[in-house]
């Protein structure tokens, strides 16, 4: 069964290091992987690792104020930079606090390495203090995981972990290290290559020309083609190839939220993004198209609604690096397995070789143009600041150049609707898992990755409160991440569903005093006082209620050199529109 391998002489020799503790070996491995920042919260079982980190100046250690905050920050560091984000926590409760971010990274295919301390190996399985079976607990939400029982394995484990996290379809990898393994003295051997016996991991995942050529006649015949571009465009860095392909074939592009910025939204071929709260024209285009080219997508239920009514007239092509995504939610005509950057790049070359000229689809473009003109994302003006207006104003004042992070809920959708993204890695959001509390720690991670860019968390008052303690991290670590809270005193998205489907009965969706709910008309009841909380953390804050002060308040936030909390008071009565109710189809889209 053993496969023939290239002679060992073909590989660079593994390097034998000096004698060191397991913990120092971990740090050495991180440095070798190019890690220069980690988000880590210490505890008994990870103390050795922190001591080892204290012995190097090559890695910046950022102390979050909650392990969940640290792990979301590491994940956002990865989303903003494309590098593997690294977080670390101690055993037991430290580790369990990482689970949401690990699950989030798994759902959104984000490369992350999560390191956890574990109790001494002799105590494993004995319910020792702060012991949890973290390896077992995270099995369903990791790309891979390791429990290291021999310190000599650390170099191989780290080399493999970083390779797995970023290769193929990226994802999170957990490395659980008992304290005695951290303390053990070893002479590490650092491998220069990784080997896996699973043939799908090391093999280059490239589509063949034969597969790609099958697409060309479909392109030539299509009267109403649409490209459906997802997060795979971003993780494969395929945005340039996508743009070239769309322009060459003259096909309009609707992205997913994960794919936001993978195609410039100001481009004349952009249909912005589609799905449950996406553009009406994007949804109609996909519904009516006769050729749908899905690239780096997974036909998520928030995109398709009822799959039996999704793109019913279309021949569907699906290009993705993960073969298990083909025909998973929706049967497709032409599944193509391969790295999307390679596939699109090669397609562009094949089109040139075949002297491909785009077919006449003028009527379709006219139809799309009319839909775009008649049904843009819109909102009704109010005497109060409405949340959509706050996002739009932020967009104007930042000239669309900021990185936007979000929590989860209405504000997350408005951020995507009223801020336009021209580049990848600019809209960072917990999309598959939908984890509230993601926004502010994510802004910290993004700002650390991209200090050159303005980073603003557009958040809700519910989501922001979930990781509000990270204001301390921002202040102490001098990370100028800003938060613009669209504060409506409610859990807005759940309220919207209550209004639409549950007769407006409030089931625990009011965040303040139910008998005296704060609002722009009742400012004295607003709760809590986010500005005072920010002050307590040493962070500048401001509350804005009057519409006339909005623009100036946002300008002040942007001009401030440091973290900042802008608490924008908005009415809770706004609904995110359009909306395709869960499990329904485009025909049932609510426009008002």
């Amino acid at each position: 069964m053993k496969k023939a391998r290239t002679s060992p002489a073909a590989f660079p020799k593994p390097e034998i290091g000096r004698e060191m503790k397991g913990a120092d070996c971990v740090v050495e491995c991180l440095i070798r992987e190019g890690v220069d920042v980690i988000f880590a919260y210490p505890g008994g079982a990870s103390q050795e690792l922190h001591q080892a980190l204290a012995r190097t100046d090559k890695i910046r250690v950022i102390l979050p104020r909650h392990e969940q905050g640290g792990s979301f920050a590491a994940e956002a560091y990865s989303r903003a930079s494309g590098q593997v984000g690294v977080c670390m926590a101690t055993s037991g409760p430290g580790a369990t606090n990482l689970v949401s971010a690990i699950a989030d990274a798994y759902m959104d295919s984000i490369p992350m390495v999560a390191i956890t301390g574990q109790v001494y190996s002799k105590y494993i399985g004995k319910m020792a203090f702060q012991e949890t079976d973290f390896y077992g607990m995270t099995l369903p939400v990791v790309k891979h995981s390791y429990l290291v029982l021999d310190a000599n394995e650390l170099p191989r484990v780290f080399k493999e972990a970083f390779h797995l996290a970023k290769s193929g379809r990226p994802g999170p990898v957990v490395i659980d290290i008992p304290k005695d393994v951290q303390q053990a003295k070893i002479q590490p051997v650092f491998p220069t290559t990784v080997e896996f016996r699973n043939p799908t991991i090391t093999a280059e995942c490239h589509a063949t020309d034969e597969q790609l050529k099958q697409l060309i006649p479909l392109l030539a015949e299509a009267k109403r083609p649409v490209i459906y571009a997802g997060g795979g465009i971003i993780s494969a860095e395929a945005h340039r190839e996508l743009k070239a392909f769309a322009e060459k074939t003259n096909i309009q592009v609707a992205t997913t939220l994960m794919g936001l910025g993978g195609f410039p939204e100001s481009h004349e071929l952009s249909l912005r993004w589609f799905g449950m709260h996406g553009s009406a024209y994007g949804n109609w285009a996909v519904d009516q198209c006769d050729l749908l080219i899905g690239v780096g997508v997974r036909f998520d239920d928030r995109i398709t609604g009822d799959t039996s009514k999704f793109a019913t007239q279309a021949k569907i092509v699906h290009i993705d690096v993960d073969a298990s995504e083909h025909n998973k939610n929706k049967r497709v005509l032409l599944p193509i397995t391969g790295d999307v950057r390679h596939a699109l790049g090669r397609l562009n070359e094949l089109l040139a070789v075949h002297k491909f000229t785009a077919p006449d689809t003028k009527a379709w473009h006219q139809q799309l143009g009319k839909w775009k003109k008649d049904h843009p994302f819109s909102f009704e003006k109010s005497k109060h600041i409405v949340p959509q207006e706050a996002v739009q104003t932020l967009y104007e004042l930042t000239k669309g150049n900021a990185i936007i992070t979000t929590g989860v809920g209405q504000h997350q959708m408005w951020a995507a609707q009223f801020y336009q993204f021209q580049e990848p890695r600019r809209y960072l959001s917990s999309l598959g898992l939908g984890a509230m509390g993601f926004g502010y720690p994510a802004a910290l991670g993004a700002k650390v990755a991209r200090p050159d860019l303005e980073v603003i968390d557009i958040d809700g008052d519910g989501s922001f409160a979930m990781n509000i303690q990270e204001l301390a991290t921002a202040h102490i670590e001098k990370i100028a991440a800003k938060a613009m809270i669209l504060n409506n005193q409610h859990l807005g998205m759940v309220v919207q569903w209550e209004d639409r489907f549950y007769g407006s009965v409030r089931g625990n969706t009011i965040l303040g005093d139910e008998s005296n709910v704060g609002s722009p008309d009742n400012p004295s009841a607003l709760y809590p006082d986010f500005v005072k909380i920010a002050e307590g953390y040493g962070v500048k804050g401001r509350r804005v209620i009057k519409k006339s002060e909005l623009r100036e308040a946002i300008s002040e936030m942007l001009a401030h050199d440091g973290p900042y909390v802008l608490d924008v008071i908005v009415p809770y009565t706004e609904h995110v529109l359009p909306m395709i109710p869960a499990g329904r189809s485009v025909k049932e889209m609510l426009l008002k």
Partner: protein
Amino acid sequence: MRHTISVLVENKFGVLARVAGMISGRGFNIDSLNVAPTHDATLSRITIVLKGDDAALELCQKQLRKLVNVVDVADFKEGQAVLRELALVKVRADSGNRAEIVQIADIFRAKIVNLAPTEVIIEVTGDEEKLNAFLGLLEPFGVLELARTGRLALKR
């Protein structure tokens, strides 16, 4: 439909949990499961028998293939593989009916592997139908305990 899934895996701890978790997490109930090393001690073969919707199971196999420690996955269709199972069955037997039990065992090419004054342990191999027929015939004597390997499969 009933499927026989054969998964070749690296012989490392946690692999069985990953494979079983992938299957249970998708709502499949495993009828039988067998794990043991192959001729290459660094590899183990997991043979799983389960019932499930074909499309859901096809997806499950693709997802199994993505597990880092999985080397190969196959779903054996009817007739593609040799299927065998081994059972150890302890039957009540005394001097009065022992001869009859031994006779039945002979017909099924089963072996008496333990003999005690009031009971015998019989080893039998075969496909599922044969084993079920054999166990049915022993039932009237009083089956005390039963251990089965679950199905083993090797592609023809």
